[in-house]
């Protein structure tokens, strides 16, 4: 396999990873940010590295598309992580509250 086809495969893999991350974010957003974030980073690295040499034609288009989607995916993952971490774990809506069983004050 030549260097050019390796870069093409890299770009395609980056594109697939970025799409996977975007799907994860669309479904769970805060729920799986810890999976989405590393995948988005890998997608971005692959998308950048796929630009080595002088890719042309479909490889070039796929490479830039992957780069764009990886950036969007990484940004979304960072936002998801920031949102999740800024919510006090002790009172996280997804984990229930230690006070939820107490009678309501009136």
């Amino acid at each position: 396999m030549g260097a050019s086809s390796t870069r093409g495969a890299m770009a395609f893999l980056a594109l697939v990873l970025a799409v996977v991350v975007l799907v994860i974010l669309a479904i769970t957003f805060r729920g799986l940010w810890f999976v989405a974030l590393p995948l988005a980073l890998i997608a971005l690295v692959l998308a950048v590295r796929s630009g080595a040499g002088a890719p042309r034609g479909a490889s070039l288009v796929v490479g830039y598309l992957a780069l764009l989607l990886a950036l969007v995916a990484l940004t979304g993952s960072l936002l998801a992580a920031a949102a999740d971490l800024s919510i006090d774990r002790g009172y996280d809506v997804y984990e229930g509250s230690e006070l939820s069983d107490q009678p309501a004050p009136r």
Partner: protein
Amino acid sequence: MSRGVAIRLGIVVAWFVVLGIVAAIVMTRSDPETYADIEEHFKYGSIGAEGRSGVPASLWLALPEVFPDLLPEGRGEGYERVGLLYEEGKTRPIGTSFRETEVGMVGLNCAVCHVGTLRASKDARRQIILGMPANQFNLQAYLNFLRNAGGDERFNADTLIPAIKKVDPDFSRVDEVLYRQYVIPRTKAALQQLRDDFKWMDVRPAEGPGRVDTFNPYKVIVGISTGDTIGTSDLPSIWNQRPREGMHLHWDGNNDSVAERNISAAIGAGASADSLDHEALKRVRDWILDLKAPRYPRERIDADLARRGAGIYAESCASCHSFKGSRVGKVTPIDEIGTDRHRLDSFTQELVDKQGEGTGNLPKFSHFRKTNGYANQPLDGVWLRAPYLHNGSVPTLADLLKPPRERPDVFYRGIDIYDWERVGFISRGTTAKRDGFRFDTSERGNGNGGHTYGTNLSARDKRALIEYMKTL
């Protein structure tokens, strides 16, 4: 590095630079809704209280729609049920403000505790009076509504977003994503924190409308125990602040700076050292320096009787309660005044020390001190400041001039129909019982003893004194 990689790295860097700039703009955004007219500013302007205790605006509007059962029973709809006042054509009640931050937030301002209402009779038009104690507003009920909503299983995006769309036609698809993914879970967490922070309130007698425990919330903020102290006291009027400069302010006279007292009150409304809007607060401060109390209706005053009462007032009351009195604005020791001491004991030296440190994202205060009694207050507009004594335990002036054992043990407060005979608000009878809050003086902190000055006057002199006090 090949040219292709360099270009891609350039794109990545540019992306994050732009993203950083956008994030900085969004996260530092703080644009309050502003009002040129000072009265509008007082009623609806922001003093920065959205920072610590604001609720996202669209969510705040929708909460009464989703949780009507968590509001107190009574007249009105939505937030009217906790005593908030709506004016014609306004979407938010008096005492609430709006500030655009990452999302638009609703907070409270000075007017929530210092705008009251009056009706001359049961069927009369309700008058809104600025600077008057908020006799109808039940802050505890408002807080409990938010606390209970935050802990309710219906507090989730699937239930709240349809309700938000009903009450807020500007709620966009982007807002929906933001609210679903971040705002609603974050607010739920914050309200559950609020529920925890105010747990001390659940084991104390109910405050009822027109009253607040001022300093126990402070103790939570600075991280000291509330113990079993009760600081519940009446909301004060805020007229004529200029002549009050230098007097010992608050019921126990624990601060002698009007400016610092104002900042402290803004903290009570929900601001923090970081969020406090000093310019907005200064506008209010400047305005209330010379804001006058409304006059008692002239046609309802017996001028001759009032003239006679002026002499009795000068002899029996003026030294402590006239603006020029020798003891006005000074603290009368608790052993002498004899009124309920819970409010006095709730403000502790430990809290004074913490306030001086500026812990808990509070400003550093330097004028607070621990006192040993209650401050002698000027009586401007006293006719609108009922119920009386620091804890609002005596419904009318006529009752206040009775010996403590003859004052009502139980009465109803929170009614804005005026009692022109006893001078105060209607506090007994069918209407009061139906619409009012039952105030029991036997509960801790609600004692109606003490302040026996004038109780030994003849019935005729008492009538004359009350007639004169209407004119203050």
